[in-house]
Structure formats: structure tokens, C-alpha cells
């Protein structure tokens, strides 16, 4: 017999004593086999709510119990010959009764603590289902000298859900993902593919002369999404425009938005300031980018596209203001 560490035994005895309302010492003594159990027991009978399957691995059963509240209706399972009216036929609007509400954590979910023991602990009579559950041991007696490290899990303590987690689910107006969302997505996908195909047939991607380290084009422009920054670089010191704006304000600043904006409301009328700031940002970056793309010519100097032409090679083949 494998020695059970004292503190484990004690912990399980404490839990059991609390559940049964008995003194800890007495339960501990019972567990150690020093005293006969105080109460009559239902030996090895599973409490209601659990269905131990003989021959299945006990650890699997632990899982089965843990997941029991979210068990999905399995159509493969043998069904009664006549259709039962209680079969889950969720209406489109109502939440299905059986678990398809998979997003909300099941209210009955619980933490299960398995304590390793050799001898089956008697189930606490009466309060089985809710507080503690005994999983029937493997019907085959465990081999005498079980190899090191191989232990079977027997005692399962089920803690009430409310004690350890917040259940925040609220009733919401929901529709089935299939077909309602999937159909929208499919249409969006087709439209996008079509759009990209047509665009790619009409517009040829640019390919200029081969790279030449000795010939710097005038002007040299970054890709368009960095042109706003390049534009800033022409006004400010590079330390500000090249570093402070993109990394500090751009990246870190943006990541901090949810932690800086403490206003809990999402109503536009309550967030006028935030919306104004973001709109400034949008307008600003759009202006800078358009300036960089269209209004910068030789030497990155200001130029009018209709007078001096467009210096932007990405759009080389399709924007012509001057001939």
C-alpha cells in the first residue's frame, strides 16, 4: 500500500469533516482506519448526478464529471426509439436548453480536487451530488505493488460554482451563427475577392529599374503608410519625428488607451472628448499621408501634383495629372 502523505490526508479529512459537520480528528482517525466509520454508508454507490462507467479510467471519469454541465447533446448516442418531446429543439431565438450556450460558463461548473488514495473513501451520505462525489474505483483491484508514480484518483471534491467564479451571463438577443453570421462573412469574402481580382487585372504593380546603390532617386519616399512620418521628419528634429511620435505616442500611447480612458460609457454622447481626439488623429494622419504622397516633389520639397506631377511610384501607372 502506498503511503499517503499526512498533509494530504489531513486536507481531505478537513474537507470531509466540514461537509459532514463532524470533528476533524474523528474523521481523520476513520480515514486512517483507526476507528470504524461513524455513519452507515452506501458502499461504492455513486451519488446521483454521476454516472461512473465501469472499466473506464477513473481520471477520465473525473473529467466527465467536471465537464458534465457543458456536455453537448451527442446525436450519435443511442436515442430512444420514439422521439422524445424533450429532445433539445431550441428555437432560433431562445437559447438552446442544452449546452450550445457554450460561451457562458456553465453555472454548475466547479473545481474538482482529486485526492490520491488507495482505499476508497466512503461517500458522505446524503449530500453527495453537491458537495463531494466519490468516483467508483476501477473494478479491477489495483495491483499490489503499483509502479512508482502511478496513482489512481478517487476522491473528487466539488466546490459550488458561486463560491469561486462570477457568473456574469445575462440574457441577450442572439441568433445562430450558422447561417446568419456565416452567410454575411461569405458574402464579404466573395466581394473582397472579386474586388481584389478586378483591381489586380486593371492595375499593374510597379516595378522600376533594378536596384542601383549609386543612383538615389529624387525624391526617395517611404511606403505610403510611413509617408506621414516622413512628412513629420521634414518639419521636426528626427529625434521627435522619427522616434518620439511613432514609438512613444504611436505604439505605447495606443496600447495605453484602454487604461488611460477611464470613462466606462460607450455611448458616443458621453465620449465627446475621446472621439474628438481620435478624429484629430485620423484627420492628421490622413493629411500628412496625402501631403507626403501627392504634394512632395524633388528633394521632398512642396509641390503641386497638377503642376509638377506626382512623385509616388506605387501609383505611377494610374494617377496622371500632367501629361
Amino acid at each position, binding site marked *: 500500500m502506498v503511503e499517503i502523505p499526512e498533509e494530504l490526508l489531513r486536507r481531505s479529512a478537513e474537507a470531509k469533516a466540514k461537509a459532514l459537520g463532524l470533528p476533524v480528528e474523528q474523521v481523520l482517525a476513520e480515514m486512517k482506519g483507526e476507528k470504524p466509520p461513524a455513519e452507515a454508508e452506501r458502499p461504492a454507490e455513486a451519488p446521483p448526478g454521476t454516472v461512473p462507467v465501469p472499466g473506464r479510467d477513473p481520471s477520465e471519469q473525473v473529467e466527465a464529471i467536471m465537464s458534465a454541465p457543458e456536455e453537448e447533446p451527442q446525436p450519435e448516442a443511442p436515442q430512444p426509439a420514439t422521439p422524445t418531446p424533450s429532445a433539445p429543439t431550441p428555437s432560433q431565438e431562445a437559447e438552446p436548453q442544452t449546452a450550445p450556450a457554450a460561451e457562458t460558463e456553465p453555472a454548475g461548473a466547479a473545481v474538482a480536487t482529486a485526492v490520491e488514495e488507495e482505499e476508497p473513501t466512503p461517500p458522505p451520505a446524503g449530500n453527495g451530488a453537491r458537495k463531494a462525489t466519490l468516483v467508483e474505483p476501477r473494478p479491477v483491484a489495483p495491483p499490489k505493488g503499483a509502479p512508482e508514480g502511478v496513482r489512481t484518483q478517487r476522491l473528487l471534491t466539488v466546490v459550488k460554482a458561486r463560491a469561486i467564479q462570477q457568473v456574469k451571463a445575462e440574457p441577450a438577443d442572439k441568433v445562430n451563427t*450558422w447561417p446568419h453570421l456565416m452567410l454575411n462573412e461569405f458574402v464579404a469574402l466573395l466581394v473582397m475577392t472579386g474586388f*481584389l481580382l478586378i483591381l489586380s487585372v486593371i492595375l499593374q504593380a510597379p516595378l522600376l*529599374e533594378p536596384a542601383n546603390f549609386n543612383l538615389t532617386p529624387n525624391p526617395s519616399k517611404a511606403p505610403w503608410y510611413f509617408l506621414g512620418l516622413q512628412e513629420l521628419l521634414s518639419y521636426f528634429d528626427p529625434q521627435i519625428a522619427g522616434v518620439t511620435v511613432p514609438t512613444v505616442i504611436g505604439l505605447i500611447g495606443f496600447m495605453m488607451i484602454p487604461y488611460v480612458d477611464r470613462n*466606462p460609457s460607450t455611448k458616443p454622447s458621453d465620449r465627446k472628448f475621446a472621439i474628438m481626439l481620435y478624429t484629430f488623429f485620423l484627420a492628421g494622419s490622413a493629411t500628412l499621408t496625402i501631403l507626403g504622397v501627392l504634394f512632395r516633389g524633388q528633394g521632398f520639397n512642396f509641390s503641386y501634383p497638377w503642376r509638377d506631377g506626382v512623385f509616388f511610384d506605387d501609383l505611377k501607372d494610374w494617377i496622371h495629372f500632367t501629361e
Partner: protein
Amino acid sequence: MANGDGRTGLLERVQEKTTELMDRVRGSQFVESVLRPGSPFKKGYTDSPRNRSYVIMNNVLYHLHPVKVKRHGVKLSYTLCLGGLSFFLFILLTITGIFLMFYFAPTADRAYADVQALSTDVAFGSLVRNMHRWGAHLMVLTVFLHMSRVFYHGAYKPPREFNWVVGVILLLLTLLLSFSGYLLPWDQLALWAVTVGTNMAGFVPVFGTQVKFALLAGVEVTAATLLRFYVLHVLFLPFIIVIFMAVHFWRVRKDGGISGPL
């Protein structure tokens, strides 16, 4: 339709046989084993609320979508499908990108000629290259617009703060993916746009020069930079962005699905 002498027409017989064959195929053990219960392609699928749940729940789709979503979230006007389109563009870019990889060698003496040959020697080469290039620009745009949509909805507020942070990283990765791809055609546009772009990285205080050196594999753009950007572009960055996308989608669901209604 039966014709004059009581025999069925050829067309009808073909139809009958086809239906019979299809039923045999769909009822076969192999097809049965491939399709999970509730699949709309399964024999005898009927449109019932229960089956609508199974279509998602019993399929690989369950990794992306819950069985039910909030009604207002389905409205096109709420998300404008921008997040979904960003993801879809990423998929399209992966597919077209793999195609391009077959015809491209990331070396200074071959890269340019290889890209040029796409337009002359490769079937659909030009089309696929165009799709890859414009798709990349579009993705930068959709990701940016998606971020703006999220901001205007206040959808970054608790409990979604962290998903916004993940989103900002996704935006950065999208920009880096696009930027690293920019160098690969190895033409004047590529060379000098990347030179200008990486010069900005050189202004980073303290490690500026080191950052630039690591990016360029040297002090300026060289053939070594081409290989470096290629590996970043086809392997490293896609790998990282997929991980962050997985977290992003997971958090959309775990944070209670789409935000709102306003």
C-alpha cells in the same frame, strides 16, 4: 418525362442515376466518417434550430465561432466586417505569397529578374503578383479602419482592454510584414523606400544604430538585407502574427463576444 413509347427519357435516367450515385457516396462509411453530425453536407440534413447549432458546434468552425452571436453583431453596419476582412486578406496573401515563393529567389542577382519573369514567363504570374501587392496595401488599410471602428465603438473598454493591446501589436506586425515585403522586388522603389524607412529606425535613442544594424544585417541595405527581409517576410513575421491573431480571436470570444450594442 416519359416519351411516347412509355420509356423514360435519357436525361431523366441520367438524373436518376446521378442522384442514386450521390446518395451512395454521401451515405458511404468514408463520407460519414469525414462529416461530423450536423454537417449541412451530410445525407438527410434538415434545417432545424438544432442542426444550426451542430453546424458550428460539431465542426472545426467551433474554433472560430460560438454557436450563437449577438443579433446586433451580425449587422453589417456594426463591425463592417473589417476584422474579418483583415483576416481574410491575410489568408489571401498567404495563398498568393506561397505561389510567388515558387518563382522567387532572394538573392541580389536573381530577385529582380524573377519578379520581372512573373509577368512574362509564369502563367497568372502577373495577376497573382498584383493581387499580393494590392492585397497587402488593402490589409494595412482594413486593419487601420478596423482599429478606428473599434475605437469609435469604445470596444476597448473593460473587459476588452487587453485585446486592444493585442490589436496594436497586430497593427505593428501588419506594417512590418508589408514593409519587409517591399524590399523583395529589388528595384529602385524597393531599395530606396526601405533605405528611407530604416533610416527612421536609426533615430531610436541609445540603440538606434543597433536596431538599424540588426534590421539591415549591416550599416546599409545590401544583398544580406534582402535575405534577412525575405526570411522575416515569409516565415518569421507570419508565424508571429498567426499566434497573435489566435489570441486576438480567442479573446474576442472570451471577453463576451462582440461589444455593444451602443
